[in-house]
């Protein structure tokens, strides 16, 4: 059985794949900037663009839970009082 790859091996093995994904993100953002008119983005697009930037900030941050934090960034906040909102009671 082969052993689990080391961190060094993961970086070496995934470098081109991650590089390609980063280039794809950069190219999309360039395309947005290139095609945005003088007035820039409308409100909905500006919010989505800001959400992408917040995601990029998480990717660039330290820690071992970036994927989970990204998921939470793109999730609606949990409403603990949903039962009251729906008029449902716990049994």
């Amino acid at each position, binding site marked *: 059985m082969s052993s689990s790859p080391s961190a060094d091996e993961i970086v070496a093995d995934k470098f081109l794949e991650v590089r390609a994904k980063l280039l794809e993100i950069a190219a999309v953002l360039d395309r947005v900037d290139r095609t945005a008119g003088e007035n820039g983005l409308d409100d909905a697009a500006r919010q989505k663009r800001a959400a992408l930037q917040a995601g990029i900030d998480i990717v660039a941050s330290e820690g071992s839970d970036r994927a*989970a934090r990204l998921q939470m960034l793109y999730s609606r906040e949990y409403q603990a009082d*949903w039962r009251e909102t729906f008029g449902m009671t716990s049994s």
Partner: protein
Amino acid sequence: MDYIDPHIHMVSRTTDDYATLARMGCVAMSEPAFWAGYDRGSVDGFRDYFRQLTETEPARAAQYGIQHFTWLCINAKEAENVSLSRDVIAMIPEFLDCPNVLGIGEIGLNKNTKNEATVFVEHVDLAVKYDQSILIHTPHLEDKYQGTRMILDMLCDDSRVDPDRVLVDHVEEHTIKEVLDRGFWAGMTLYPVTKCTPQRAVDMIEMTGGERLLANSAGDWGPSKPTAVPDLIFEMRQRGLSESLIKKVVYDNPLEFFAKSKRFEFSPRQ
């Protein structure tokens, strides 16, 4: 390696897919009831669908040496029609003694609405009354976290529910821990774009150890890959994970969970 796909919608797939899955090592699968791509108009539409799931698909699978199991419900997308949902829930017991039925599913939430929650609770009540296991669909994208928490709230509210007989599907990095911590089984769906890749699924296996964890393709009529579980097996091997851990996730765990269904009978390949 022999494997089991615990969530795949074969009514949407061709017979060629059965042949491919058999060649890739698939020996069993379970098919939850789901949305057909349109809202069905009557309880008889569901009755016909349940016949397809309990008669046609098992026969089609058997031609390729695959054992086919199923789960019955009206899905969350159609739960906005509460009246029709109640008619379907009342009809489901007609099929619960069919030999390939494992339980109630895939029930859950889609947009986290009151009607969806109402129909979910009534499905859970049906499952408890008929001593059935449960397979759960959790919402997509930004609705997943809230919907998963609501589902866990509703299940934990009902003291009759045994978490060990409930599989919560489509978990991702932000929902897997709470599902497992509350004692439920968790399913990872390997899906392009909206759920998780084999690589991220293996990350979650490495982080949790694979206990009470299953992986599925959820292959259906949309963009999906029915051979995604073999992709997961390949990724686990690439990372040097043990054959025993791979087998646990793709074979032993599904068998252990399915065996909690009273009608489950499985013949391993000799």
